[in-house]
């Protein structure tokens, strides 16, 4: 059972690390990376905790949920990346305009 909680804690670590980067990193590409890593953290917790079954066969529902989640994440990432390009094109910087001046 240790494995379950070990990986769940790693998931929390990823989530918080991503959140931290989402706040402090100005570069938009890194913000998107951060969102992706946060998502991975949540998925990790979801799947890790699914192994708490007694029979040894993990609960398949979280697995399906994570596959759905991964597809959603890649969709959001693709959209975000194109938008970063647009923001950069018009402002010359891959950052929010208010953060560069600070």
């Amino acid at each position: 059972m240790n494995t379950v909680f070990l990986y769940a804690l790693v998931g929390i670590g990823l989530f918080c690390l991503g959140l931290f980067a989402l706040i402090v990193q100005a570069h938009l590409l890194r913000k998107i990376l951060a969102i992706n890593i946060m998502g991975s953290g949540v998925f990790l917790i979801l799947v890790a905790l699914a192994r708490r079954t007694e029979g040894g066969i993990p609960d398949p529902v979280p697995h399906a949920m994570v596959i759905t989640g991964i597809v959603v994440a890649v969709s959001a990432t693709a959209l975000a990346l194109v938008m970063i390009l647009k923001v950069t094109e018009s402002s010359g910087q891959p950052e929010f305009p208010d953060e560069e001046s600070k």
Partner: protein
Amino acid sequence: MEALALLQDVFDILLGFGLLWLAWLALFSLDLFRSIVSFISFGLLMAIIWVRLDAPDVALAEAAIGAGLTGALFLAAFAKLQPASVNGKGSSINPQKQSSRKQLLRWLPALIMLWIASGLTIAILALPPHATGLTSEVTSNLTASGVSNPVTAVLLNFRGYDTLLEIVVLLLALLAVWSIGSSVPSIESEPGPVLDTLSRLLVPILIMVSAYLLWVGAHAPGGAFQAGAVLGAAGVLLVLSGWKLYPGLEGFPLRLVLTAGSITFVVIAILTMLVSGTFMQFPPAQASILILILEMVATLSIGVTLAALFIGSPPTDIKKL
């Protein structure tokens, strides 16, 4: 036996810390390119962890979509970003500008983050060590679902409605990307001889792998999304080696292929409603063939959509309209 368990624990701990370290590198490494490479490695490590957690379906999806395609998307964006930001006012990443206020802005979130992490840790450790979730429900209904792989059963039968919406999300992302329509031309490099040969060799293999994953998904790890992602990877490889879609196919045929997955889903859902009276209720006898049809078309759509997302700019036919 005990030594083996200990070894496994050590392996798990190493994997966990490796994952955190790669995440740190991806987020805070000074060089953006290194960050992205770290992110791709992060995805691969993640796939290994999924295997460790007995989730081979997720591992396949992660390796193909999470690490592979997302990584490729990031790399492509990175490549396009370089000229864009150089043409502009130049990069603003200037470490000397850090004021004391900015320092505070780093410490305060860090503190809060520690607080949240500890709160979540307590919340998760408080969970009971044993829980069955929905395992028993899935197993008892597995025979009626038409497939023997429980994950595929959940994805395409028990919670097929979620999957329908998810395919729509993917399509929507493509629509959005096309609507925004980056004016930065996609990378048009001459493929070197290595890439050229590689693509000639790899693409047929990838298509084979995709078909296998699709077929095997009914009773073993695999399925539409994994197969679609592999197909998408083949598409990416083709694009990278300079392959272009025949212009006549860029219009309606391409759009039809892109929407085929969703359309088939909807059509089958309505057909089942007409037959059994309930939306998306597959009759157990026909369930396996219906799911196979669904997965085949969905794989094609997902693969093409992912490849199109990688290219980014809409086909000329769409631009004209």
